[in-house]
């Protein structure tokens, strides 16, 4: 029976008249990656801030390592690592010094810190940058350093707020690989993201939220299979809307977003065959993904505000 690392129970939070977190519950186990996905303003960062004790929920409870928050905040933070959305590295210190200084905040002994720094630099692929300052590093390197720093106290729980936002594709892949390693090592990760590929790749389970409310929960593939047809055919170009009308019958569901028509079909072949008759159209056939899920559940695209 794995330990419940983080349990949020029926959290509510209002700012003035607007409800930002609405009856949110989640349960994170050791070795698991739970993703909270939703558009900007969905309440993801507010939820993280409540877990960090920076905000008090209006109602509901938060428990980490079976200790209630905020009463045991100090003890919880000792076992937790945090990577914020925006870098908070010390610009005046080198990479190694950043790690050392941070280790002291946890009350770690000099010996422990000395031992951990080379390991963390290696984990972050920054061994050659030990004496470099954050200003000399690329965005991806800084994010890796932030992740390395968050591990100085060997936490059992990691909170990552949009860990790869702002990174180029190569840097994102390196981050994902590192996070996979941590999960294999038994750490629990709670991350927030609005990237569907990240959610699908990293997360064992997802919590899809919109306007502070959970609208779906489950493993990524499971959610897709549960709510969506297996295939999507995107059609755009001249005459796309006419094609929509003509080919509607071949698809289980059709959506029009802007200039693109989305056909959702569990059996896409007849549809694709019909579309071959329209050579001016651009056709993209792909499996259903979480963007489609979000679109279906909320009627909106995840990056629309």
């Amino acid at each position, binding site marked *: 029976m794995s330990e419940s690392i983080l349990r949020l129970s029926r959290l509510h939070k209002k700012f003035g008249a607007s409800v930002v977190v609405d009856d949110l519950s989640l349960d994170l186990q050791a070795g698991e990656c739970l993703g909270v996905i939703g558009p900007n303003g969905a309440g993801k960062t507010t939820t993280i801030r409540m877990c*960090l*004790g*920076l*905000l*008090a929920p209006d109602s509901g409870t938060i428990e980490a390592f079976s200790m209630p928050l*905020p*009463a045991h*905040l*100090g*003890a919880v*933070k*000792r076992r*937790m690592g*945090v990577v*914020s959305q*925006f*870098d*908070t*590295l*010390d*610009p*005046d*210190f080198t990479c190694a*010094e950043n790690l050392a*200084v*941070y280790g*002291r*905040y*946890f*009350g*770690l*002994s*000099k*010996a*422990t810190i000395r031992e951990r720094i080379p390991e963390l630099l290696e984990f972050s692929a920054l061994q050659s940058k030990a004496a470099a300052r954050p200003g000399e590093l690329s965005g991806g390197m800084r994010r890796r350093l932030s992740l390395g720093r*968050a591990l100085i*106290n060997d936490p059992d729980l990691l909170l990552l707020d949009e860990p790869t936002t702002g990174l180029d594709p190569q840097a994102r892949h390196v981050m994902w690989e590192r996070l996979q390693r941590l999960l294999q090592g038994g750490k629990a990760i709670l991350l927030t993201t609005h990237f569907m590929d990240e959610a699908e790749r990293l997360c064992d389970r997802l919590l899809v939220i919109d306007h502070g409310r959970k609208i779906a929960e489950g493993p990524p593939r499971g959610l897709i299979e549960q709510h969506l047809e297996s295939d999507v055919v995107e059609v755009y170009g001249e005459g796309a809307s006419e094609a929509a009308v003509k080919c509607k019958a071949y698809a289980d569901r059709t959506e029009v977003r802007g200039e693109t028509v989305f056909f959702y079909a569990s059996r896409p072949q007849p549809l694709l065959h019909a579309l071959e008759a329209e050579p001016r159209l651009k056709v993209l056939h792909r499996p259903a993904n979480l963007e489609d899920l979000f679109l279906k559940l909320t009627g909106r695209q995840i990056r629309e505000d």
Partner: protein
Amino acid sequence: MAAVVFESKSMLVSLYAPPQITRGFWPVLLRNLLVWRKLAVSSVIGNVAEPLITLVAFGYGLGSLLGHVHGMPYIQYLASGSIAVSCALSATFEALYSTYSRMQVQRTWESIMNTPITLDDILFAEMLWAAVKSIITVLAILLVIFALDISRAPSMWLSLPVLCVVGLAFASIALVFNALAQGYEFFTYYFTLVMTPMTFLSGVYFPIEQMPGWLQGVAQLLPLTAAVKLVRPLVTGQTPTEVGGPMLVLVLYALAGYCLALILTRRRFFG
């Protein structure tokens, strides 16, 4: 080797709860010291050059015109007051510009609050650090005063512990304004409308008795006046006429400043 433990009951204390200061302040203070060490030389020069130039220019320049003021050569009169001002300005500058950079721009405080260290400890460390900065500044100026033979009184070194309290008082007051700031420009108002007038009203450049009666009354309430009353006699080797009163004024400013700064800073972070 056992790890040091920083225990904190809760971060979501009421805004008005008493300060909960633990040993957690120490790594934060140490961090600031380590950064300073990298820039130590330029920092000291920056903090010390202006007061020294002013001292030399006015001290010798005006001194040759004024002769003795309050029973001492003007250069001594000015230098001993200058020390108090430099302490106050140095602590204020650090607790405003540098603290704001750490708090808001670099988000250093945010990173520290993700560890077991609390806001109460961070603010305490920032106050202490600003006072330490001011002592470093003041020590350099005292050494120059000694080297230039402006004063060689043995009691001048006793001014250092007093200046610690001065530094703490001005750091605390400045931290109140740091809590309210939305940008660096705000601090310009503080220097122009608060610190600069204060330096002219506190008996640094000329005796308070030269001012109209009502202004003298105002001056008696200012922390810088209290500082000068304590520091000038010590630096020039005279017996202070007032000790308990000015010291109490400084301590009260330090305590009130810290408490108010803490409430406002808590409000800024926890809403």
